[in-house]
């Protein structure tokens, strides 16, 4: 899973925030996340600048440590939301929510993919970022947030009888066989109350 991790680089001079940003970075790596971050570029003093440019359509979500909001954070959020990428915005408990973020939370279109979470600085606490981030990653993996790409391949063995039917049906519907099957599965999925219930629970638990 590829994620963009964004921090306020202006706060790197402050040891407290530098340590926090790096701790979260390490935690994400430890959790198997394929990470792209503005932090890496800064810490390596520009050595990574020659890396191949990647964009929002190549990542699955954005995580921001935004207790001390940077002006660029708004653009990162706006672009991620425009690309329909979920955003986890982390704030240390005891800080006020910036006005612009309140607007995002209240907007029905923007708020859908924007998750603002307060975390406790006590790592052993249940509301530490060490609990929030894995929950967010689980939610992503459940597939209920990410706009799915049709890129999973597997082998399906069918009988000649089914194959004949599939060929006949796909011609009649003027669709590729794979497309016809995908649509049928999507119909089943969207009409499955038990699966809907499962997704609803995953979201509300976060």
């Amino acid at each position: 899973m590829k994620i963009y991790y964004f921090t306020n680089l202006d706060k790197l001079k402050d040891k407290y925030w530098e340590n926090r940003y790096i701790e979260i970075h390490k935690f994400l790596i430890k959790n198997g996340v394929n990470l792209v971050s503005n932090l890496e570029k800064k810490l390596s003093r520009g050595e990574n600048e020659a890396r191949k440019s990647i964009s929002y359509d190549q990542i699955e979500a954005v995580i921001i440590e935004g207790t001390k909001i940077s002006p660029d954070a708004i653009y990162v959020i706006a672009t991620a939301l425009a690309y329909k990428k979920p955003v986890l915005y982390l704030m240390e408990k005891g800080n006020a929510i910036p006005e612009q973020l309140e607007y995002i939370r209240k907007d029905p279109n923007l708020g859908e993919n924007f998750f603002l979470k307060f975390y406790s600085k006590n790592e052993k606490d249940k509301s530490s970022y060490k609990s929030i981030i894995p929950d967010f990653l689980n939610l992503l993996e459940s597939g209920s947030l990410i706009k799915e790409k049709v890129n999973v391949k597997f082998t399906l063995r069918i009988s000649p009888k089914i194959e004949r039917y599939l060929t006949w049906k796909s011609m009649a519907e003027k669709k590729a066989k794979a497309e016809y099957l995908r649509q049928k599965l999507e119909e089943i999925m969207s009409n499955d109350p038990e699966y809907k219930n499962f997704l609803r629970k995953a979201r509300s638990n976060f």
Partner: protein
Amino acid sequence: MKKVFLIFYGGTGLYDKKAGLKFVEKYEDIYDWLKLIPELSIMAEIDYTIIDKNKDLLSRENIAELLKTISENLSKYDGIIILHEVDSIPMLANTIFWQIQAPEKPIIITGANTIEKQTHIIPDLSFKANLINAFQLVESKVARVSVIYGSRIICPSRLKRVGLSGLNIFDSVNKQYIARIDFGLSIEDKTYKAKESEYYFKFDRDFVFFKTIPGVKLLEKLLEKNNEIHAIIFEAWKNQITERSKLIDLYKLGQKNNKIIIFYNQIGFAKDFFKHTIITISNITPECLSAKLSWILGQTKNKSQIREMLKKEIMDEFFVNEIIKD
């Protein structure tokens, strides 16, 4: 919160899954159109206007109205973003680049690359991101005229169209960019120093630009003494095989009828055979040359001044040409 002035001047094809493809055709459409990109309202306060592109995309009236709108509003906002059809962005951007030299605030041009096929329209899915990036460029205070598309922010004088569709349909002729975009802006051209801002409202596009030397009858007509054409530009073929005697004859006819003849290529001339006759110009994009000549003709009709201004580097418009590819 930053204040941005949006000018709708074509290139507004915005795709929304629920609403479909939405265009701004008249002022009343803008409110609903903006509602489809709520992301913009978290970045800046937005005011807007529309230039009626239906008159004629780059008509004299429209350009005059656009320049007036920019000059009246630039001081009131942190930046101006102009939406325009991507096909004519190079010409429009260069026109603004010459008429509003070294603006005190960012003037950014972008647009939706909506492609009309015979049976359907292909929307530009990167348009929202381009627009958001334009807002970010206002925030970064890069006080220049610039074009944003895909991952590149390019100065109009370096702009070159390189593709019909895709992430980057524009490139810089010498690979120099104002900035690049991935998860934020990386300003590359940090050495840029702006001169004092100058606004020019006069321009004159009564000249013609040929890819090759046209037939004699047409030329005689174009070079008639009493028509409105001030200049004719011929672009040299790539292999530069051109009958020099034919060009000298043209020059003489032009001289007799008070017309300027310009011989142009992008690569440069090894020998300037025409340095005392025809004006030779190179190492500049055709759109930049057109906009520069239009600006010059708006300021003077004196032939020796025109020659001098065309040859002189005024806005860092000439570039080193090794990288040009067709």
